[in-house]
């Protein structure tokens, strides 16, 4: 079991409420995965800004004080990059006015042992071990504004309970994937991706799914096609939610082993493992509520 709650806000007047709404949803899926959790928030003022790249690193302590990291990045990057490093809960956020490729190289050079858990112009990713609502509170989710949010509470089965094994897996710019279930042929697909030069951070089965989707997108698939292809290659149980800078996708395995329910209104698209996570959303009484069909890819774009 694991819990998923995701929210895409169509009505800009709800953007200031994003964190509060996502937190209220997440609170109802804690029972499904109490060992660790992760969050992704999109276009949250104060965390990301247009024209700059933001990297989320696992852990608040990177073995160097933020000023020293900033100084090292400043030497490696153009003078206009204006690198900023700060701790948010148990996550380190690094921001600079350069492309993600360049910033990734500078971070790896400065912090060779750091684990990058999120990257892009629009997304910040936060993870931790412990009670999911404590992790959300430590990161200040309630007060975060934004356009989209994704949360996952984990009950680990295929790999250890570690912050690195928490979802979402964010392995390409602004791309996040969360998973309820388990992939049974992930080792085979991992070997194939490794042969193609893909580098992995963990032993986690879900990371293989995220790397696969990133690889398909890089090869030119759109999100819907990438997930259709995933369904042809991956075996096992899954309800997946995938987010990009402006899209949200949901897909379940063809025998619908894992639950999912969606509420759609003019104001938002919300997806959760169970209805109770949707019950307190504004206007839920008039939203269209349905369970996604097995094996069918659903996508919504802002």
């Amino acid at each position, binding site marked *: 079991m694991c819990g998923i709650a995701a929210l895409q806000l169509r009505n800009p007047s709800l953007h200031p409420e994003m964190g509060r709404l996502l937190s209220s949803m997440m609170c*109802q899926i804690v029972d499904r995965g109490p060992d660790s959790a992760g969050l992704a928030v999109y276009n949250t003022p104060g965390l990301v800004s247009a024209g700059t790249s933001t990297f989320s690193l696992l852990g608040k302590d990177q073995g160097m004080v933020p000023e020293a990291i900033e100084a090292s990045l400043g030497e490696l990057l153009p003078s206009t990059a204006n690198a900023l490093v700060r701790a948010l809960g148990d996550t380190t956020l690094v921001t600079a006015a350069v492309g993600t490729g360049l910033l990734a190289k500078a971070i790896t050079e400065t912090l060779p042992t750091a684990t990058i858990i999120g990257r892009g112009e629009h997304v910040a990713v936060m993870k931790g071990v412990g009670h999911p609502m404590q992790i959300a509170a430590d990161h200040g989710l309630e007060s975060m504004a934004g356009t989209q949010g994704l949360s996952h509470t984990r009950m680990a089965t295929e790999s250890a309970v570690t912050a690195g094994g928490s979802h979402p897996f964010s392995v390409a710019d602004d791309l996040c994937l969360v998973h309820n279930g388990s992939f049974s042929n992930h080792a085979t697909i991992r070997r194939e991706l490794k042969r193609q030069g893909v580098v992995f951070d963990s032993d986690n089965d879900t990371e293989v799914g995220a790397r696969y989707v990133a690889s398909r997108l890089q090869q030119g698939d759109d999100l819907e096609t990438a997930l259709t292809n995933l369904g042809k290659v991956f075996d096992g149980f899954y309800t997946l939610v995938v987010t990009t800078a402006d899209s949200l996708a949901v897909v379940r395995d063809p025998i*619908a082993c894992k*639950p999912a329910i969606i509420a759609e209104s003019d104001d938002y698209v919300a997806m959760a493992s169970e209805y109770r996570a949707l*019950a*307190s959303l504004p206007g839920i009484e008039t939203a269209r*509520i349905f*369970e996604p069909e097995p094996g069918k890819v659903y996508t919504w774009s802002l």
Partner: protein
Amino acid sequence: MVTLTADTSTVTDLSTSTVRELNQSLHSAADGQSWTIENPGGKHSLAVGIDADITVTLNGHAGYYAAGMHQKGDVTINGNAGVGLAENIMSGRVHVKGDASQSAAATGHGGLVVIDGNAGARCGISMKGVDIVVGGNIGHMSAFMAQAGRLVVCGDAGEALGDSIYEARIYVKGTVASLGADCIEKPMKPEHLDELAGLLAAAGRDDNPADFTRYGSARNLYHFHVGNSASY
């Protein structure tokens, strides 16, 4: 918060009462009493194990296992129901005005389960005598190993309908994506039209029985035979 109203219908508000308090009060109920449940909020295990001839109305959506192990009485859900609605129902009636998720009326021994909307996968899985009437569509693997009872579908049925079915009878008005192993189409005889008319009437529906097709067991897989092993 339990309030006794003038018409002796008890109102339980789940924004202030716990599910355990609700179910305990339903288990202590006497025949003829009635309950209204407000603000269910998708909570699990609502109105389970009712063993008195009472009437329960739930205003809102229910979570998993609503009206599970139902023994007596009448439960109406003015909303959707989650996984395992009326699981192992023995008798009585459960009516969902919206949709039901997977495994509705699974293993039910008797009684009537009415779902006005759609039901998810595995509806009536291993049913043992329950009657199920679904106003909309049902998902895949419904009536898997169904032993007895009737499943009526006014919409379409998903893949592998009635796989390894025993003596349950299935009536579908719309299309069937595919039939499971040993499940076949069967002729609609007068007794089937009569029985279907009765079920539709009991569910408060006006569909024409003549528009339905009957499905049931070919009775080739009743006993294990090594020659059939590829069909299981």
